[in-house]
């Protein structure tokens, strides 16, 4: 059988100056894209704001005051006004970033993991497994994403966990489809054939030769879903399917302030503006990554 003669003492491989790899090129191209860098900085700022909300926020986001309900922007002590229960809008917006970011990133991340596994397996192994998987994916494609999210959330009932679950289920099919299509392309490449010809098993080939070439495009696609996920999650809260009061969450704030548009319209519109800014920053960042990583489509 395989006869191997390993020389016992440790072998020192002289290191060589590595060529600047793929990621160095990506970083160099990304740095040149001013819009994407700007969007990235905004995203970073929002993330920091969410992490350090307790230190940044000037007031307790849940402390209400019946006397100071619906104050306009610029009220002393309430830089962005006060909401329908007299709570400081600025503090609530800062704290609201936590849940909004969480609901934007976490479902997409979980879906990225599951969708990639499903899609890469379907693409690599092909055949009946591929047909069955992709037909199931097609069924989910028959629902516009908003409808699917609301259907699942509506059936499961309100709550963060249920929203998280529904959004994850919404994003698995599209990620699996992208993963399947890029994997099918890579599987046909001669280097995969060459790896098979060297006697490697499927798992080794996937690990060494497939993942490195498909995860990039799948990842870029997944980042473009973060803004969709945020908007959908806030939308679910807006319908009363997400988190419950008094938790500060941008979609829920928008919901409870809806009736206030006749009194303090611009205060009422603030949470939506926060969603908008975050979502557009994620989209621009994703576009920048796409061109820096040279992903087609």
């Amino acid at each position: 059988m395989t006869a191997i003669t390993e020389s016992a003492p440790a072998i020192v491989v002289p290191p060589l100056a590595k060529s600047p790899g793929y990621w160095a090129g990506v970083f160099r191209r990304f740095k040149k894209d001013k819009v994407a860098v700007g969007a990235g900085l905004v995203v970073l700022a929002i993330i920091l704001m969410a992490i350090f909300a307790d230190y940044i926020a000037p007031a307790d986001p849940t402390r209400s005051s019946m006397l100071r309900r619906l104050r306009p922007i610029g009220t002393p002590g309430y830089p962005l006004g006060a909401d329908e229960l007299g709570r400081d809008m600025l503090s609530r917006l800062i704290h609201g970033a936590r849940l909004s970011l969480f609901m934007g990133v976490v479902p997409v991340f979980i879906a990225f993991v599951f969708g990639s596994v499903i899609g890469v397996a379907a693409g690599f192994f092909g055949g009946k497994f591929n047909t069955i998987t992709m037909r199931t994916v097609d069924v989910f494609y028959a629902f516009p994403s908003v409808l699917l999210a609301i259907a699942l959330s509506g059936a499961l009932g309100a709550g963060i966990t249920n929203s998280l679950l529904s959004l994850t289920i919404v994003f698995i099919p599209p990620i699996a489809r992208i993963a399947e299509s890029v994997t099918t392309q890579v599987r046909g490449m001669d280097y995969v054939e060459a790896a098979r010809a060297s006697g490697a098993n499927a798992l080794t080939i996937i690990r060494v030769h497939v993942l490195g070439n498909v995860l990039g495009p799948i990842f870029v696609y997944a980042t473009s879903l973060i803004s969709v996920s945020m908007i959908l999650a806030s939308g679910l809260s807006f319908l009363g399917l997400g988190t419950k009061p008094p938790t500060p969450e941008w979609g829920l704030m928008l919901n409870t302030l809806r009736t206030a548009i006749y009194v303090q319209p611009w205060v009422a519109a603030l949470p939506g503006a926060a969603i908008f800014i975050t979502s557009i920053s994620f989209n621009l960042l994703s576009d920048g990554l796409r061109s820096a990583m040279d992903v087609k489509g």
Partner: protein
Amino acid sequence: MLSYLAKRILYVLPVAFGVSLFCFLLVHIAPGDPLTSVLPPDASQAMQDELRKIYGFDRPLPVQFGLWLMKALQGDLGTSIATGRPVAAEVWRAVGNTLLIAGLATVIGFLFGCFFGFVAGYFRGSYLDKFASMLAVLGVSVPHYWLGMVMVIVFSVQLGWLPPGGAGPGGSAAWIWNWEHVSYMILPAITMSVIPMGIIARTVRALVADILNQEFVPALRAKGLMDFGVFRHVVKNAAPTALAVMGLQLGYLLGGSILIETVFSWPGTGFLLGNAIFQRDLPLLQGTILVLAMFFVGLNVLVDILQGLLDPRVRRR
């Protein structure tokens, strides 16, 4: 062409079956006994058993699915718990209303999207192009329910030009085609049009840029055709794809209108769904989603077939 048609229809059948299965299971993934959703809270044990029989919940799941599917195919989607009326009737009325604003929104989105996309594609790299590209990003990034609120704030609260919500004095039952009623459609339709506008603009821009790069365009110019001639050729070549995207977008809007309808209290499917969720009216939820999804599936096939008719290359895929 016939074989293409047959292939498309054969392909969609398993999808339609899967969609029905999903909608059927929606009631069963809901936490708790599906019966609790149709029971009055103070129901006696005897009444529970009685209702369990009537609804067929005592039978095995596949049998239940079969029976449910048979009924659905005959147009019977069950009875709403909240109103006691047949779900099908409620859904159909709501679908009509949704189609009204979704259709208007698609038309607005298509016209503006084509305009911006065409300008951007024709003057690639110019400021107009950058502006149109930015608009496309804005279109997909904006939370449209918030945009609806801003619209109400600006045009109803501040300017007082248009009504903030509802479907007119008589509601949707007494709809008449006059300004008084149509004015209620304008804000929701414009809000909704932002979604397809960005996507259509992006598609048309890519199409126009692509066509202008093809060899026949300089050839046309060489033949002495003026810009209008080139324009006509671009339109002729870009139209099938642009129309296909428009068709698909109408489908997305049918499902995506839920939040916007809630903002404007427009009595469409979204509003119906909102109520169903609020009252945990699961048969109504199930029926509405089934109809909307089937609409979407049907629209997809229709678009595919139309595209096949317009462009023989599509048929070979």
